[in-house]
């Protein structure tokens, strides 16, 4: 028999206290992870990379075209925003692949857990 087990509380009061303690512990443990990531299954990842690249180009060019119509600068804004859109698409792909989630900017590397690929290289 395991004697190190905590004795079971019988009163209702202490039980609800224990439930509260458990819940607060769970809530603490289950905060949002800084690197929430999509499933890295090959099919999903391939689809994700393609759509991110394409959507970046479409949105960039679209905004450029709209600005051109507004400011009468055809085709300057469209050309500039085409490249910016491509850059945004690539940045989104980089974020998706490095598991940086969707947030903008750089993370401190200490936050970043090394992924499986990195572990393999150190072996």
């Amino acid at each position, binding site marked *: 028999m395991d004697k190190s087990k905590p004795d079971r509380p019988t009163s209702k009061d202490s039980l609800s206290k224990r439930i509260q303690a458990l819940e607060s512990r769970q*809530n603490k443990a*289950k*905060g*949002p*992870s800084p690197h*929430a990531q*999509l*499933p890295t*299954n090959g*099919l*999903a990842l391939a*689809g*994700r990379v393609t*759509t*991110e690249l*394409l*959507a*970046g180009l*479409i*949105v*960039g060019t679209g*905004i450029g075209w709209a600005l051109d119509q507004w400011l009468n600068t055809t085709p300057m804004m469209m050309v500039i*925003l085409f490249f*910016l*859109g491509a*850059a*945004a*698409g690539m*940045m*989104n792909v980089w974020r998706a692949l490095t598991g940086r*989630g*969707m*947030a*903008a*900017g*750089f993370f401190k590397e200490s936050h970043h857990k090394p992924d499986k690929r990195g572990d393999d290289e150190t072996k």
Partner: protein
Amino acid sequence: MHSPVEQFTIKVLFALNLFGFDIQFTNSALFMVLAVCVSSAFLYFAMRPAAIIPGRLQGLAEMLYEFVADMVQSNAGNEGRPYFPFVFTLFLFVLFSNLLGLIPYSYTTTSQIVVTFAMAIFIFLGVTLIALFKHGLHFFSFFVPAGAPKILIPFLVLIEVISYFVRPVSLSVRLFANMLAGHTMLKVFGGLAVMIASAGGVFVAGSILPLVAIIGLTGLEILVAVLQAYVFTILTCMYLNDALHLH
């Protein structure tokens, strides 16, 4: 011979004229209503026994609930909990639209960019408004990458703004393209089987090959239907997380 994209044509089932608005009830609209009805009916009848020890159907409903609840919790944290009903509804709607579309002679609403983009743009606007109400003008610091060299900041802010506006597009295009491509592929293989068989003689036996391919592809399509509903929902949670906790 039917074209493989003919399955996506919108047919008007009946036209209504309500208060001067021309409302056309299409086959797409019918399957949206069906998705809502089937998912609601499923949850209602599965949870009706409300047994402490769940049966199979109730177990399935509870699994769905806990799956989405866990997804919201782990991706958006405790602050994301108030938005759980929305995320759960969204997940069920997309899941059931995708799965209903796999039934032969049915219609896949999510294979229309209008439908997926409408959902995505509402998520995008909603999430942006939540962020604005919660953080005020501080929200715009979201576009300034931390730790970047000062000279690069104007350039990077531009890219960040564009990549923010990319969100609804990539969210909707991913779901729409997956459903469109999958259903077209199924139809192409189906058409191939008919074409080979119509050559007659020995070729009839050869039409078994595309038929076998269709069986495999249907399995794959079920996977894609569930996976894309999951991806759509988890991305919504991630956007919500960005809105609730600015870095």
